[in-house]
């Protein structure tokens, strides 16, 4: 069974038809710029020696991340991964907290206990990833299971990279979701490189979305540089899951535009490949669409870019003021206490 390959999004009317108004369109642009801006600033912080350990980015994946996150409902949940900064931003994580996380400060979402984009915020429906990819994929399936048991109209998003799709967790999670028709949307960010391993050494099928048929649900391939197409496909899949139609597997194709992490110069990626995908940069592409099709004015664009710049400056300053974690707190939270269960998320 061939998977469906999603069409690009064209007209303004088509965008309105999938539920986005002008403010939404600008919001998407703002989130994409903010996500990239945070990671660009992160590079500087890293070079300044302010980020311990290593540093990971998702350059090239902004459209995929923001497109999916924008399609999620307020009560939907998910476990975004290390290329999905845009999900955190679109869901409302404050950038200063992310900078604080990068620098291992007390105000980072993990209070210095974990680094990078290993963050979550249960109030925003986001749950922190682990390095063992895609361990959070079947966890998201469990979230969908809870919604199904309680008959709630909520959806869980399970992210996975094309590299991690080779692991058993991906299979067990997708199989269970298919068997029980759980309200889960699987998003495979296929950025074509798992560290230095090219996609063709990771899977033998033409498209990872082809696997969906084996699990009894629908698969779709979308151009991950087209934020509106990603949004449309994610919205369709989320709505379907919410209505009891079961899971969908969305394969979002991009190129990882930097190394696996900051220490990796990605010299194994052919230069022409970078050049080709640089011409399809998701932010440039969306900006052009906004200017040409949505008539974004100079004034509107300036307001957005200046606003993002201001936000990043203020966030960075606030994060730098955040204290280092107190070593006396080292053992705090190894175990949870009973009173922590009395949160809305554990009732």
């Amino acid at each position, binding site marked *: 069974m061939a998977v469906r390959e999603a069409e690009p999004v064209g007209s303004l009317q088509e965008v309105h038809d999938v539920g986005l108004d002008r403010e939404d369109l600008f919001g998407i642009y703002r989130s994409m710029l903010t996500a990239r801006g945070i990671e660009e600033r992160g590079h500087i912080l890293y070079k300044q020696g302010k980020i311990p350990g290593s540093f990971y980015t998702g350059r090239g994946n902004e459209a995929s991340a923001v497109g999916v996150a924008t399609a999620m409902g307020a009560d939907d*949940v998910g476990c975004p991964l290390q290329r999905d900064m845009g999900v955190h931003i679109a869901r409302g994580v404050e950038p200063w907290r992310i900078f604080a996380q990068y620098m291992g400060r007390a105000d980072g*979402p*993990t209070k210095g*206990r*974990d680094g990078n984009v*290993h*963050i*979550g915020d*249960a109030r925003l429906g986001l*749950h*922190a990833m*682990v390095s*063992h990819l895609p*361990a*959070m*994929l*079947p*966890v*998201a*399936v*469990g*979230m*969908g*299971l*809870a*919604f*199904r*048991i*309680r008959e709630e109209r909520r959806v*869980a998003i399970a992210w996975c990279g094309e590299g991690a799709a080779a692991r*058993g*967790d991906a299979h*067990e*999670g997708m*199989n*269970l979701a298919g*068997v029980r028709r759980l309200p889960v949307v699987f998003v495979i960010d296929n950025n074509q490189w798992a560290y230095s391993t090219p996609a063709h050494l990771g899977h033998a099928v033409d498209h990872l979305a082809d696997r969906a048929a084996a699990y009894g649900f629908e698969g779709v391939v979308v151009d991950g540089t087209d934020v509106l197409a990603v949004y449309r496909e994610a919205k369709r899949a989320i709505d379907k899951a919410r209505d009891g139609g079961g899971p969908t597997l969305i394969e979002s194709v991009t190129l990882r535009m930097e190394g696996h992490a900051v220490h990796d110069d990605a010299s194994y990626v052919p230069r022409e490949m970078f050049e080709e995908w640089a011409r399809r940069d998701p932010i440039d592409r969306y900006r052009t669409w906004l200017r040409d099709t949505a008539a974004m004015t100079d004034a509107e664009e300036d307001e957005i870019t200046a606003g993002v710049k201001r936000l990043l400056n203020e966030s960075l300053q606030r994060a730098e003021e955040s204290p280092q974690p107190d070593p006396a707190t080292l053992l705090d*939270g*190894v*175990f*949870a*206490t*009973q009173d*922590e*269960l009395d949160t809305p*998320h*554990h*009732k």
Partner: protein
Amino acid sequence: MAERTYLQAISDGLRQEMRLDPRVFVLGEDVGVYGGAFKVTDGFQAEFGPWRVLDMPLSETAIVAGATGAALMGMRPVAEMQFADFVSCAWDHLVTVAAKQHYRAGTPIPIVLRLPSGGGFSGGPFHSQNPESLFAHIPGLKVVCPATPEDAKGLLVTAIEDANPVLFFEHKHLYRRIKGEVPDERYSTPFGKARIHREGDDIVVVTWGAMVYTAADAAEIVAAEGISVEVLDLRTLIPWDREAVLESARRTSKVLVLHEDTRTGGFGAEIAATVAEEAFEYLDGPVKRIAAPDSPVPFSPPLEAAYLPQIDDVVAGLRELAAY
């Protein structure tokens, strides 16, 4: 109060919690229609329906990860591994995700993993293990090993109430062999409180699970020789009752640590080291360990009998300590 087997007590405790709390649900292989490989959840699906007693695919990873995700959404999953041995397939999800999520992200993972464990009936290398020490080594996990029907029910209630991932090791050899009075009403047995199974003055045997009975039988034999042996049942390994162990060590002055898990790196080593560190000056002899040897659990009865600590082994150890 009624006489119940260890297995019935677990079943009763679980059913009681499910009646009380709609967030509690069961997931595992063959737990629904079939009622579980050992029939702990027999009749549960008829009472609670197919979405609270979920027959799962052969996917230990998805069972544990699914429980974790459901717990993050406010449920109280009780997952069954058909045999404790199979938890190795879900290692990553216990150790990488469930154990660390609260420390990193501040979100509790209140899950219970029921683990039918232990040997004694030719289950072979893959249906007989006692892997509790592996998990006791992982910060963030709690480890429970009940020995009596009363404790099995009370500790299961505490496990379900607990805000953390709890590994509940139920010893298969106790399921139908051990009976005891179990209160009908709901009660909880606290974690980290050891139980004196048998009182004694000369030597304390620190143990848990099925070995409590091996120790008690050995104590009975040496009692005729005038050796008074206390049997201290730890009940839970994480947290473990250091104070009770140290108190008994100081009082009796001789300590034998007994477990069915293998010797090297077994939890007995932690107990022995703690006694040596904290109660050295009270000891009248070396802390002795009796445990399974460092090999897989063999299948054939004479090999398995040689592998599992036997009453005679404990008797010999007690005599040796008494004579020291």
